[in-house]
């Protein structure tokens, strides 16, 4: 089975691609949860308490036998995808419900990042104080 590199935002996994059809990536349903966190349940495709119902009209596009079309699912949940055929890499961005209200809510998105020494810091640790947040770069 061909290998693929899956970049699910900040998580990188090597997966067995059950089928590659152009830009379409199919995974075995049995390995879906390990690779992406999503799992097929009676309610739909579920992850961390969110279930996406599978419309009957699109079922055959998403699920065939024991295979799941991860790129068609991305389309369903308005998740951007970028694919590099040469290296068999798929990048999946955030789902529509994550990116649409991200900044219009005016709530500062939380994040956790390391400093030079590798120690993690989260924005939420500063809740209760005013925060001056500055983005910079060396380039």
């Amino acid at each position, binding site marked *: 089975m061909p290998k693929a590199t899956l970049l699910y935002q900040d998580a990188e996994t090597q997966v067995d691609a059950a089928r590659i059809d152009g830009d379409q990536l199919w995974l075995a349903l049995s390995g879906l949860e390990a690779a992406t966190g999503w799992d097929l349940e009676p309610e739909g495709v579920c992850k961390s308490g969110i279930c996406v119902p599978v419309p009957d009209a699109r079922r055959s596009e998403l699920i065939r036998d024991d295979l799941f079309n991860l790129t068609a699912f991305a389309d369903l949940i308005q998740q951007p995808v*970028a694919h590099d055929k040469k290296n068999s890499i798929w990048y999946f961005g955030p789902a529509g419900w994550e990116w649409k209200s991200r900044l219009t809510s005016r709530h500062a998105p939380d994040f956790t990042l*390391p400093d030079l020494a590798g120690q993690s810091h989260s924005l939420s640790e500063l809740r209760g104080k005013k925060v*001056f947040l500055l983005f910079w770069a060396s380039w």
Partner: protein
Amino acid sequence: MLTVACDAKGNAAVEPFIAAAHQQHPSVIDQQLLVAELYDTRNVPAAFWIDESGRIVRAADPIYAQRRNRETGEVAINTEYLDAVRDWVAKGRGSAFVMDASRLDTRLPELEFDDVTAAAHFHLGTYLAQHGEAAEALVYFKRAHALRPENWTYKRQAWSFGDIERDYGTTFQEAVKDPASGPFYPPLDLTD
């Protein structure tokens, strides 16, 4: 105070700057530029003011702590902006420098699918460049640039992996003049 280095080349690229700054505050590194995407920053520097409840009250200021006088070359502390920050610290929501809804709408426009698609291609390009596939990375960096020419972070980070003239057929000066790119920095609008 929290500073985020948006730098795909990671610690090696940012360490000299952090060492020179002698920072007293947390200084973190966003090597995948995921937090830059979260805040839709389109260039650096970009400063955000976040109140005690975690709400953004001022967004994406293209601000330097020091300014150079173009005629004399003299470098001076940016007291005008520093005073604005002090005013906010003292007055909170009552500060005239806190942005109202319409100004925040201008700085933080609603995202479209092309925004996140551009980000996906930029992140794939970054991954390839970080893994020794600089030539292949160009394909995805260029797609990100085509989708969002106004995002200078995508351009400047991509250029840092190669040669702007050889790889992108332009120069920094030409790119800045390109009308499709829009302004290099948004207007600061401190006093309007």
